[in-house]
């Protein structure tokens, strides 16, 4: 369980002024829950993810994972960044095994587990290829396998599909849900896309900028497994529209298509 209590993050800007990236964040994420963070640029959603990851310290408040305060990266967390960040000199298989090598927990069955994960995301046959030989979507799939190789309880994803084209993006969303059903994990998912957030999540956390804080938390009661057909359901439309109006305010009506 992730427990964020009154968390804030400030940092000094270049001109010496203090920037309030996050302020008064309260959020509890249950085990195996899928929670998305949505909001405009500068609302601190990626910063919040980095705090949970232990990559940056909170300036105030507490961040607990399973009752322990997060003050450094944890072994039971897997992270997927916006870009695949694969090592260009390693094969896909070695890239997936990278966390185990760093954490000195390579076991004899690790390569087999990596192959199984790659099979799960449809990358069988690409194990010995180098990242440059893969498309952007395939690279991101490999990055997801890498985040899963040490079987973390928590998966933090920072706009993982942001750099992909729309079609690949939809395909990857469903794939992620399939993996999540296969291996239930707590997922904290940062995205710019409102439909993506609604489709994937149990709850959508809408954030507003300057300082970054939670505007509203929206439950998504759609049944699982989710499919793209659900985008037509009134529940889906209603929630998307509500989130849009939270983010864009009055402008939401005029720029209805904005995602």
């Amino acid at each position, binding site marked *: 369980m992730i427990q964020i209590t009154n968390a804030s993050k400030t940092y000094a800007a270049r001109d010496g002024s203090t920037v309030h990236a996050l302020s008064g964040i309260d959020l509890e994420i249950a085990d195996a829950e899928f929670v998305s963070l949505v909001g405009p640029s500068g609302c601190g959603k990626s910063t919040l993810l980095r705090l949970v*990851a*232990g*990559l940056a310290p909170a300036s105030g408040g507490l961040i607990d994972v399973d009752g322990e305060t997060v003050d*450094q*990266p944890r*072994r039971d*967390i897997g*992270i997927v*960044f916006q*870009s695949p*960040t694969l*090592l*260009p*000199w390693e094969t896909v298989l070695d890239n997936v095994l*990278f*966390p185990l*090598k*760093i*954490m000195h927990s390579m076991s004899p069955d690790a390569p087999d587990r990596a192959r199984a994960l790659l099979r799960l995301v449809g990358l069988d046959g690409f194990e010995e290829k*180098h990242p*440059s030989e893969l498309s952007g979507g395939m690279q991101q799939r490999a990055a997801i396998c890498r985040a899963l190789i040490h079987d973390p309880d928590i998966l933090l994803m920072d706009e993982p599909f942001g750099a992909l084209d729309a079609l690949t993006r939809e395909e990857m969303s469903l794939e992620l849900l399939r993996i999540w059903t296969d291996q239930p994990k707590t997922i904290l998912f940062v995205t710019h896309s409102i439909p993506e957030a609604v489709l994937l999540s149990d709850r959508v956390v809408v954030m507003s900028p300057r300082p970054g804080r939670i505007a509203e938390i929206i439950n998504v009661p759609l049944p699982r497994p989710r499919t793209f057909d659900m985008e037509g359901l009134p529940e889906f439309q209603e929630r998307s529209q509500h989130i849009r109006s939270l983010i864009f305010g009055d402008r939401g009506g005029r720029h209805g298509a904005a995602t």
Partner: protein
Amino acid sequence: MALQPRARWLSGFGQEVALPVAVMATLVVIWEISVHAFAIPVYLLPAPSRIWVDSAAMAGTIWGHTVATLNTVLIGFAVSIFISLPLAVALTSSRLVANAIYPLLVLTQAIPKVALAPILVVLLGSNELPRIVVTFLVAFFPLVIAIATGLLAVPGELIELGRSYKASKLQELWRIRIPYAIPFIFSGLKVAIALSVVGAVVGEFVNADKGLGYLIVSSTAFFQVPVAFGALILLSLLGVVLFQAVVVAERVLFPWSAKQSQGAIG
């Protein structure tokens, strides 16, 4: 339209090998003819044929000189690598170290190596050592800069990736920074090997009893200009062969790196 077949011939093997060879051969022929036509004295500019004949006559001796120079170049180059790598790592590891060492490094580059060489001979004795030190001093700086640039060019995301799995500083260096810097390191090595030849010759000019640099000094002193030219040509060939050896080493050892840098530096 009529140009197309010729252009195609030139684009492949032709453009890369046959064309430069043809241009070279033409220049040599023009050189040969000019020397005879204008009756240029041998001690000013020997004809290519004369360079060949005179150099071939003392092939054994020249071979010994070549081996001596090659030896100095390779040892100096190896010393450059062994010193540059840890130096670049130290430079990039902390501001403090960088501020402490960097001005010293710049100073070593400000000193004219030709001026330093005689002093090194006094300091280190009349042997191979001052030549190796000069070679090192000429070659190592661009290598340090190239390696340091590579170590610092690692995208923040890759460093963050390492941190998220609690990689130690050593793991970060060994598993992320150094592999990432390989293409940079090799572009530095290509500059360094070319400069090593320059450094070795500078060393030999000042103090040596063998080597191609020594051969040039001694043969011009006795007006054996064709032999000096022969030594010069051999030195150039040596430079080209060593440079290509570095290129091949990169392709064999780090094919992914060679693929990356192919566009920039062949």
